[in-house]
Structure formats: structure tokens, C-alpha cells
């Protein structure tokens, strides 16, 4: 097949993804006068950003004194010093501006009596370089993400952004010089495959939390942007770092908020013991997320898990007054009944540490440009949001910094596109011959495969393998074995078979194509985790324990660096962490303790 076999549409800019980051980038581009297309697997306001309830951080100082430099310090520390300090300074300095802008776009933030944006406390937000908690989170009740998407979407409608809804981008188009020239995408309603030829391409495809069996992420988070970038020869950065939330409903993954333990909920093992008393004698069940998660996994690994497979622990609120539960935790009761089949007034809820957020991604700088290993921009390619690694979250993200990341880097990537066009760094180049060949071959393979692997079963095996071998607490032998298992699963993914071969609304095909992306993310994660021989942030290894020489198992001498994973040969490379901020002094390496 050749390029003549697929239709081509031309745009100044193509954005893949209509969540918070994609919509924020689109505003910059459309209002900047560019002909802009936004592709999305779902209607924009059904993107996963809706799930964010907690809020977005900015040192507005509306309730008490605050400063972007303090926010920066918290973020560097939260990242366990793996975040790039230029990007972190940029994000924290820009935060007040982008939040106020969002307010002007119509975001209905909660307000103080004087009419300012109301700010609430949140874990890890401190004043005066870690001294005491500060109110920095801005929210719109418990629907911050939803309200944010609506405000951004309306603004885009006004700016004439062109939306392509229920379209799935399949692959990047790159020429021999490495320049990105757009994407190839599939329209679900017709089954048509089309090239979006553009001067600039922005990835805003969100996370890939569905690589784990137990995940708080919606089904849509299949890491398509990561898969596309990896297939195009670009590296994925720091993919071993995934944030886990201690209390997801076992099996379903649905999040049970920390508030349940705040109200007196207790974690118990199979002997009914309140095991957190052993791990954190003071904070007990309210210790920090990673401490609780690790304790839970240790209990399960040592055979004190509950249920027929001894693979979860229990969150017990049966000792609370039913009236309190009904009043303070009504939503949790509903969730527990619907997703665990248990009324928490009568019986404890089965919970496990659950994958929540991806810190790594496509390497970018703070301008939202995708960068090569040497830091030079990949011409025509930009990324923002959870798919990107700027890197502001480093080894561990601070709550509410993700929504901020969407706004800041969505905006900066849009500004960079405009700047790169103006300065002549990028422009519309011809599509290379046979640019669609690989993608069409992939689709063809799927259409003609016989005697192949079942998509659902293969995905499930991938997810179980990631959960077991590369979960919240990691073991040397399990990781090594996990690498071998994932290589086997990759072989099955290459031979997936679908029974439905029709063109129109073929969801089986789309799911098989999503699995092609999940496997790239799974390999990147497993291989990167196996190689990193220290514990840092969310990557915790049993064989890298807390010692005086290496507090918390962190080994700065050998491992204070970013991982880069390349698909070809599953090769690893490393690059230094950027320790020099833009204007202030470096925040020097220190042990991370709270």
C-alpha cells in the first residue's frame, strides 16, 4: 500500500487529546490564529480529567501568606529530587497566572467571603520551605476537573477549534530527519484511516494506568501517546515511577478516599490485627500514602492477606456509628455496596494499593517541546499533561500538581508552537513516501490474523503480570522474572485476533489497537524498574533498604538520573537531572522526610 491509499487533511496544528492539557493547548493555538484540530477518543468533556476532585495548586496566598518558591521547594522534595528544577520553577511561578486565567475563562472556583478563590490544605503543601501546612489547593467543590474541562471547552468553541470526536490516533508521522509531520488516525464511526498532516503535533493523551490490574484510572487510559512515541523511535522517560493509592476497592480499583481513615477507619489483616500499629506506631492508619501501601503489601506477601487468595486487606469502619457513616461518608457506602458487594456498616471493605498516576512519559522541556536525549527539541512535536515528563513530578507527584501541570504546560506547548512557527523552526514539509505503511500493515495484520490471541485475555495477563511483578513494593527476582513474562506477553500482543472484521464501529479493533500501546508502556515500566537498583519516591525495592549511607534506599551517587527507555531492543539510557532552576538557587539534595 502507498500513501495515496489514505486521505490527507492539512492543519497548522493537530492536538491528540481533549482533556485538560489538550484543551488548554488548543486555546493558545486557536486564539493565536492557527487552524487547529483536536482529536479525541471521546467527547472532550468526557475525558478523564473529570475524575479529579481534589483541586489545583497555586500560591495565590488568598487565605494566608504563600510563595511560589515554597511551592517549588515542596515539589522538588515531593519528587525525591528527580524532578527537573528549571521546569519545577517554571510551573510554580506560572501557577497563579494560569489559575487566574482559568477563572476568567469561567471556572466556578469556590470563594472566600471577600470573593477571592478559596484555598484548602492538602498533603505536602507547606509554607516557608517545609515548615508548616499552607492552604494552596483551589477547587470547585468536588468537581474541579469537570468544571475545568467545561470552562476550557467553552473557550475553545468560541475560538473555533475543530474537534474530531471518537477518533483514535494510531501513529505519529515522522520523516527521516526526525521531524514530526502529524498523525494517522482512525474514525470509529466509519472505520476510515486518515492522515492529519500538520506543522505541529501536540500530544495530550493522558496516562496509562490501565497497565495495572488494580487501577483507579478509567478504561480510556491506555497510554496511546506513549505507544505512538515509542513506535516512532522516541524514548520514554522515568517509566518506573507510578504513584499508588493505598485504598482502592480490591478487584474494581475504585478509589476510597483518605477521608475514611480520617473518620476512624482501620486497616486489618487476616488475623484481624490492626497492623499499621507495627509499621507506624504514631500515625498508624493515617501514615503517608507510600508507608501505608508498603505495609499493606508486606502483610499480603507474608501470607496475612484476606479472602480465598489472601490478596487484599480490610478497611474496617464497622465500629463507627452508622449515623456517622451515613452522614460523613455516604458516597463511600454507595461505592462499597456497588463495587465490593459489601455494606461497610456491617462488614469491612476489601482494599489493595492501587495504581493512580504515571510520573514518567514522553520527555519534554518546560516549554512543552518534546526533546531528544541531548535536550534538543524534536522538530514539530510537543506534549503536555500526564503523557509528558517535563519532568516536574520526578519520582513522586504532589497532590493537585497534575491539574496545574495541564494548565501550565498545555499553555507553554501552545506558545512554543506559535514561537517555533514564527521563527521558522518548523513549517509544513511534504509527507514522506509510504508514510502510512507501518500503520496500514498493523491494521492489515489484525484483519487477517488467524489462530491468534484473545485481546481481553492478553490484556488481563499483562495487567496481572504488572501488578504482581512491578507493583507498589518491588523485589529483585520478581522484577527479573517480570521482564521475561512481559516479553512473552508481547509475543501474544503481536498475534491478537479479532472476530469482527467490519469497518463501522468496530470496537474490537480499537481495543486491540489500545493493547498495542499498553504493551509498550508495560515493557518500558518493567525494564526501567528492573534496572533501577535504588529506592526513590514511588519506586521502592526490597533490595534497596533504608540504611545510614542510603536513607530510604536512595542512592544518589549511582542513580540520581533520569531513565530513558527505547523500544528498539528495549534499550536503556540515562540523562542527568536538571538541578539548575531558572532564576533561584538549586534546592540541594537532601533526605526526603516528613
Amino acid at each position: 500500500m502507498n500513501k495515496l491509499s489514505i486521505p490527507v487533511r492539512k492543519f497548522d496544528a493537530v492536538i491528540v487529546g481533549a482533556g485538560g492539557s489538550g484543551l488548554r493547548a488548543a486555546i493558545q493555538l486557536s486564539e493565536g490564529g492557527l487552524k487547529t484540530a483536536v482529536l479525541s477518543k471521546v467527547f472532550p468533556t468526557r475525558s478523564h480529567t473529570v475524575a479529579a476532585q481534589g483541586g489545583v495548586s497555586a500560591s495565590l496566598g488568598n487565605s494566608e501568606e504563600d510563595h511560589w518558591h515554597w511551592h517549588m521547594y515542596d515539589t522538588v522534595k515531593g519528587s525525591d529530587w528527580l524532578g527537573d528544577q528549571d521546569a519545577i520553577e517554571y510551573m510554580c511561578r506560572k501557577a497563579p497566572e494560569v489559575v487566574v486565567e482559568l477563572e476568567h475563562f469561567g471556572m466556578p472556583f469556590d470563594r472566600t467571603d471577600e470573593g477571592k478563590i478559596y484555598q484548602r490544605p492538602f498533603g505536602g503543601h507547606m509554607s516557608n520551605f517545609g515548615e508548616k501546612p499552607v492552604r494552596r489547593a483551589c477547587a470547585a467543590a468536588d468537581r474541579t476537573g469537570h468544571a475545568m474541562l467545561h470552562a476550557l471547552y467553552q473557550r475553545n468553541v468560541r475560538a473555533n477549534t475543530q474537534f474530531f470526536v471518537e477518533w483514535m490516533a494510531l501513529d505519529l508521522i515522522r520523516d527521516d530527519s526526525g521531524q514530526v509531520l502529524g498523525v494517522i488516525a482512525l474514525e470509529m464511526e466509519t472505520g476510515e484511516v486518515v492522515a492529519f498532516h500538520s506543522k505541529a503535533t501536540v500530544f495530550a493523551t493522558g496516562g496509562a494506568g490501565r497497565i495495572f490490574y488494580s487501577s483507579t484510572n478509567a478504561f480510556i487510559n491506555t497510554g496511546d501517546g506513549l505507544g505512538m512515541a515509542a513506535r516512532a523511535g522516541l524514548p520514554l522517560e522515568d517509566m518506573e515511577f507510578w504513584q499508588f493509592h493505598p485504598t482502592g476497592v480490591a478487584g474494581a480499583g475504585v478509589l476510597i478516599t483518605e477521608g475514611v481513615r480520617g473518620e476512624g477507619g482501620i486497616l486489618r489483616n487476616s488475623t484481624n490485627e490492626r497492623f499499621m500499629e507495627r509499621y507506624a506506631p504514631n500515625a498508624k492508619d493515617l501514615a503517608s500514602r507510600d508507608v501505608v501501601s508498603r505495609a499493606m503489601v508486606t502483610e499480603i506477601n507474608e501470607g496475612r492477606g484476606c479472602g480465598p487468595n489472601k490478596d487484599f486487606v480490610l478497611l474496617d469502619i464497622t465500629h463507627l456509628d452508622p449515623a456517622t457513616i451515613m452522614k460523613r461518608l455516604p458516597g463511600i457506602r454507595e461505592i462499597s455496596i456497588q463495587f465490593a458487594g459489601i455494606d461497610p456498616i456491617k462488614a469491612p471493605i476489601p482494599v489493595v494499593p492501587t495504581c493512580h498516576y504515571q510520573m514518567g512519559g514522553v520527555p519534554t522541556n518546560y516549554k512543552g517541546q518534546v526533546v531528544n536525549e541531548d535536550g534538543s527539541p524534536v522538530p514539530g512535536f510537543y506534549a503536555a499533561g500526564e503523557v509528558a515528563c517535563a519532568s516536574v513530578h520526578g519520582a513522586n507527584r504532589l497532590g493537585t500538581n497534575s491539574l496545574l501541570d495541564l494548565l501550565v504546560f498545555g499553555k507553554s506547548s501552545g506558545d512554543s508552537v506559535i514561537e517555533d512557527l514564527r521563527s521558522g523552526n518548523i513549517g509544513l514539509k511534504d509527507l514522506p513516501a509510504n508514510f502510512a505503511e507501518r500503520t496500514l500493515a498493523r491494521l492489515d495484520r489484525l484483519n487477517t490474523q488467524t489462530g491468534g490471541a484473545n485481546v481481553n485475555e492478553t490484556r488481563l495477563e499483562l495487567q496481572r503480570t504488572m501488578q504482581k511483578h512491578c507493583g507498589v513494593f518491588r523485589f529483585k527476582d520478581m522484577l527479573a522474572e517480570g521482564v521475561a513474562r512481559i516479553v512473552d506477553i508481547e509475543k501474544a500482543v503481536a498475534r491478537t485476533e479479532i472476530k469482527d472484521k467490519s469497518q463501522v464501529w468496530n470496537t474490537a479493533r480499537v481495543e486491540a489497537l489500545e493493547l498495542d500501546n499498553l504493551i509498550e508502556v508495560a515493557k518500558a515500566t518493567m525494564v526501567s524498574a528492573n534496572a533501577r537498583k535504588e529506592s526513590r519516591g514511588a519506586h521502592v525495592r526490597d533490595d534497596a533498604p533504608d540504611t545510614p549511607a542510603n536513607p530510604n534506599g536512595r542512592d544518589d551517587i549511582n542513580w540520581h538520573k533520569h531513565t530513558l527507555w527505547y523500544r528498539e531492543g528495549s534499550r536503556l539510557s540515562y540523562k542527568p537531572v536538571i538541578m539548575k532552576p531558572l532564576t533561584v538557587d538549586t534546592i540541594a539534595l537532601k533526605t526526603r522526610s516528613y
Partner: protein
Amino acid sequence: MEDREKLNRLRWRCTRRAMLEMDLLLGEFLERVYPSLTPVQAEAFVDLADMEDLELWPLVNGARASSDPVQAEVLALLRNVRVK
């Protein structure tokens, strides 16, 4: 549109939603309950699936009631779904 196409489109809208809770519930409902709905109920379900999650969730968990009798029937069935 053929039945297969309609069903697949509905499947996509039930299982690629903003919130995991809704993916699980609507996906389960589609497999287990939807095939036995009356045509009128099925139509009401398609409309519900087209709602955004934060509109639909309060209807499902009972925080809000529906004034439409057919919709209320379907919501009652949806509320009874248990995801394992």
C-alpha cells in the same frame, strides 16, 4: 445504522467514560441487563449513557431522582448492578 453498529457505539460510550465507576457499572449493565430491556427502556438507557458522568452519578446513587418514569425504571435496574 445496523444493530451491531449501534450496540458497539453504545459499548464504547459505556466503557470509555470519564470515571472508572461508570465504566464498570455501565459496562456490566450492558452485558447483563441491557439485552433483557424493553425497546423503550433500551432507548432510555442510550440517553442515560450519553449523559456526562457527574450528571449521571447522582441519579445512579440516588442523590437525585428522575422525573421520567421509564428513566427511573432503568436507573433502578442500574442501581442494582453489582460489579465484582
